[in-house]
Structure formats: structure tokens, C-alpha cells
């Protein structure tokens, strides 16, 4: 196997995106994604069985499309990488089954990797100034909201905190529904917030009171915020008053962004790590990127945001992490790994 610039095919099926990526070392060759988001739109959220069915249908075509995009053939691949977790179990299993068979069909090794660490690995692709460690990483999507301390991508990742209830992306979806906006909520809230006053309503910032900062220093909570927004809107409606959608959307978004960025910057400051990486689909939110950039600059922290196509769930990030493991001389995973919906971030690779 080429261990200096290995050609890796990565498969990602942890949520509603079927992602297949191909990388050579740190060079991105293909990042193909089939999403079942449209099918979930009518239910207002990801339905696990719908996602898993869609993965099975999309897997073969997505692998073919990625190979064509990368202009490589399967017999050139040095290894297969696949998301083992965390994520939706039934969805993950489709990727795991396909990846094992694909690796065996080519007689190449397989690397079972951690989805969250994959988000960090995405930042290594196609960049002139590579990711430096240690770095703090804030990963925000519809499925997870996690703050990591990455001392070394392939050997030392620590979970600083995570959501104790809803993921931030879920909060966007739920509040969008309260405001009568379609799924997915992130872009809808963004649109609705245009012209709104982010200070119009002071919605609660979860887990930021002094006592929370002891037990949940870097954890997040969005379920109270979602309820507060719903209650505020209903009180208006009950009183027969108009609901200022733009103000509600802007104020809600500000509460989410404020707590996400505040905790991430605090982590950098307190741990003495002058680097912050953002990842996950919610990074598409322009206000989040804006506030993160402002506060990172004020605190003297270098902020890194991979291109959006590498922030949302994708197979290229899984391939990128697989390539790092190969280049670090790691042995492949044994064939007996499964789908682990709660795989901890400390398990960068399932061996």
C-alpha cells in the first residue's frame, strides 16, 4: 500500500446524507453526496427508517459517481474508510455493510472511523496551511453539537462538551416549525431573520448560569430555548397580537450563536489553545460564522472554517481521516466492527 499518499475511498451514512469521498493523501479527488433531505422535509425532521432506506438505494450510484468524479478505478484504491459512529444505527449499518464488502472485493484494508473526528479531518484537505494542533473544534449539525479538544487528529481527541438534549440544528428545525417555516429550519430561520433585531427578545442561553458552568462548563442545551420561543410566540398569538417573525428569528438565532461561540472561545482561552475550527452543517449559518470571526479575532484566536461542502456530512472527511491513519502507520480495523450510535470521540478509529 502507498502509505505516503494513499488513495482512500470514504463512506459516510451516519444521518441523512449518503456521502462517498475519494482522497489521495490530503488531496481531495471526489466528494459525492446524495441526500434524502427532501424526503424528510414532509415529516419536519430526519426519520431514521426513511434515511436508512435511502442510503441503500443511493450507495451504489454514489460510489460510482465518486469514482467517475475522481477519475480513478476501484482497483487503484489503497484502503476503504467508513463511519462506524456516532449516528443513526440503522443508517450507519448500510455504510458499514457496503464498506466491508467493497474492501473485501478489492482485497484492501478497511478503517472504521469516528464521524466527529472526521469533521475535523475535513480541514486537512486541499489546503496550503495545514491544520495545526492542538485546536478546539466546534461541530454543529442537526445530529450533534460537540466541542472537542484535538491534540492530535489520529491519537488524542478529547470531548470537552456536547449537547445534553437537542442538537443545535434540531433547535433550528423545531423553532422553524413554531414559526410556520419549512424544514430544514437553518436556512429558513436565516431568511426570516433578515431585517430582524437580534436584541428584540432576550431568549435564554442554555447552561450559562454560574452553577451550570461548574457541572456543564462546555455542554450545551437548546431544549429550554426552543420552549421559550414557542411560549413567547403562543403568548402573542393568544393575546391576538401579531408575531414579529423577523425579530423572533433573529433573537432566537442570536441566542444559539451566542452560546455556541461563547463556549468555544472560552475553551480556547481557558485551555490556552489559540485555534478554533468549525464544522458541521449548521456552519452554513452566516450569522454563526460572522460572530465566530468577530470574537475569535478579538480574542486573538485563529479561526478555521473548511469550505461548506466539507462542513456538512460527507464521505471526503471520512476518507481524509482514513488517509491520516494510513499515513501515521496505523493498522487497519478488524472486520468485526459494527455501527456504534454513541461512539465516543476518544475512539478515533475502531480497531
Amino acid at each position, binding site marked *: 500500500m502507498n502509505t505516503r499518499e494513499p488513495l482512500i475511498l470514504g463512506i459516510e451514512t451516519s444521518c441523512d446524507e449518503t456521502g462517498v469521498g475519494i482522497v489521495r493523501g490530503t488531496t481531495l479527488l471526489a466528494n459525492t453526496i446524495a441526500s434524502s433531505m427532501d424526503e424528510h422535509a*414532509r*415529516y*419536519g*425532521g430526519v*426519520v431514521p*427508517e*426513511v434515511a*436508512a*432506506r435511502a*442510503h*441503500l438505494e443511493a*450507495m*451504489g450510484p454514489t*460510489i*460510482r459517481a465518486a469514482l467517475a468524479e475522481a477519475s480513478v478505478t*476501484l482497483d487503484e484504491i489503497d484502503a476503504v474508510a467508513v463511519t462506524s459512529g456516532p449516528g443513526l*444505527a*440503522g443508517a*450507519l*449499518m*448500510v*455504510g*458499514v*455493510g*457496503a*464498506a*466491508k*464488502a*467493497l*474492501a*473485501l*472485493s*478489492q*482485497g484492501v484494508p*478497511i478503517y472504521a472511523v469516528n464521524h466527529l473526528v472526521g469533521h475535523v479531518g475535513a480541514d486537512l484537505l486541499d489546503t496550503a496551511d495545514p491544520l495545526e494542533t492542538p485546536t478546539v473544534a466546534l461541530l454543529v449539525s442537526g445530529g450533534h453539537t460537540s466541542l472537542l479538544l484535538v491534540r492530535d487528529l489520529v491519537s488524542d481527541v478529547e470531548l470537552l462538551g456536547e449537547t445534553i438534549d437537542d442538537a443545535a440544528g434540531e433547535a433550528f428545525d*423545531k423553532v422553524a*416549525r*413554531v414559526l410556520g417555516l419549512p424544514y430544514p429550519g437553518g436556512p429558513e430561520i436565516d431568511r426570516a431573520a433578515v431585517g430582524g433585531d437580534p436584541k428584540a427578545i432576550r431568549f435564554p442561553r442554555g447552561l450559562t448560569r454560574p452553577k451550570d458552568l461548574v457541572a456543564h462548563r462546555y455542554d450545551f442545551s437548546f431544549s429550554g430555548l426552543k*420552549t421559550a420561543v*414557542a*411560549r413567547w410566540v*403562543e*403568548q402573542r398569538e*393568544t393575546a391576538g397580537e401579531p408575531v414579529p417573525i423577523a425579530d423572533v428569528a433573529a433573537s432566537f438565532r442570536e441566542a444559539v450563536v451566542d452560546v455556541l461561540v461563547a463556549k468555544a472561545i472560552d475553551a480556547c482561552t481557558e485551555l490556552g489553545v489559540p485555534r478554533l475550527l468549525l464544522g458541521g452543517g449548521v456552519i452554513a449559518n452566516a450569522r454563526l460564522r460572522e460572530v465566530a470571526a468577530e470574537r475569535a479575532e478579538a480574542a486573538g484566536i485563529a479561526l478555521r472554517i473548511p469550505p461548506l461542502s466539507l462542513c456538512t456530512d460527507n464521505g471526503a472527511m471520512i476518507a481524509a481521516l482514513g488517509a491520516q491513519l494510513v499515513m501515521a502507520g496505523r493498522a487497519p480495523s478488524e*472486520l*468485526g*466492527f*459494527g*455501527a456504534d450510535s454513541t461512539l465516543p470521540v476518544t475512539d478515533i478509529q475502531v480497531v
Partner: protein
Amino acid sequence: MLLAIDTSTGTSVAIVDRDAVSGELRVLAETGTDDTMRHAEVIGGFIRDALDEAGIAPDRLSGVAAGMGPGPFTGLRVGIAAAHAFALGIARPFVPVPSHDAIAWSRYTAGETGPLQVVTDARRREFAVSEYEGLDEAGLPVRVSGPELAPRDALPEPRGIRFEATVVSAGAVGLVAELAYAAGRLPIAADAPLYLRAPDVTPSAGKRVLQ
């Protein structure tokens, strides 16, 4: 020569062959478990072991057959996903086979005759049911109805024998595929899992917090 996979009950993987001259059917290797919870974990090892036991390199296979269910969805998908990917990997055809056909074929080739009702557990107090009437001149089972769901306490009366299966042999899946190929009858099923049930969806109605 085919790789065959079925995960509609446990996990079963086989390498099968049909001699083009003599028509002799052979299972060169078959490995599996009736564990219904660990399909994703065991699928890779079983494929590797079956290939090793048969002494066959992947590029000597002429296709990959898979049992398409019915069966519990999560496990069923693992085998189909693996079979799709392996077929893609060796650039050979994927051959879908109804898992009940493999069960019926196994019974008939073991000496059963006449009408046969194949029944498998579909969970939620339901069974999946298919009716067969025998083997045709190509040696393939003739399915006259199903697979379809029936309440556990209201199974249709079988016209002949009822057989309730708890395991599906990948060897039988593969040999049904071989026979269908030899008879020029492929495809015998669509490349779509036999879920028999729409996904469970609870559309969240945006519940009110006050009131």
C-alpha cells in the same frame, strides 16, 4: 460461480456453483449465524471466510446474489448493501432473489412435494407469507402468492403444508440464482428490498407548549 448473501433472518454467506455441462449444483462454502442482532459486525468476516474456504478469489465470481427479504429491515439492508458493493467491486451482476424462494427451494429439494406455505416472522404480531406449488421444469420454485403480511393469529389456511422458517440459507439463495440464470429467467425479482411495510413515521405536529 456466485457469492450469495442473505441477512433476512440471521446472516448467511455462501459460494455456490453450477456446472455448465453436467448441471451439477454445488455449495463450495457456506458460513453464518442465526444471531439476528449482529449483521453489520459479522458480514465481513463471513464473506472473507466463505471465499477462503472455497479457495476463490473475488475476480473468479460471475456475480453476487442476495436474499431481498422479507425480513427485519435493519439487518436485511446490511446484506443487500454488502452484496451491491461487492458486485460493484468485481464489476459483475447483482442478482436479487426473494428469500422465501430460497426457503421453498430448500424444502422441495429436501423431498417436500405439493403446495407449500412459507412463513417467516415479520415482527409486530405479523408473519410474512408466500404460497408455492412446487418446482418447475427448470427446478425453480413456483410462487403463486406473496410474500405478503398476515396477522399472527389470522394466517391464511395453507393449501398443503405450512413451513415456518427461522433461517435462510445463502447457499439456497445462490443456487436459485444459478438455476434462474441457467434457465434464462433472470431477473426473478426487482432490486428492491421486500420491506412489505411503509416506514414508521411520526410526523411531529409542532406541539403546543401552552394551553
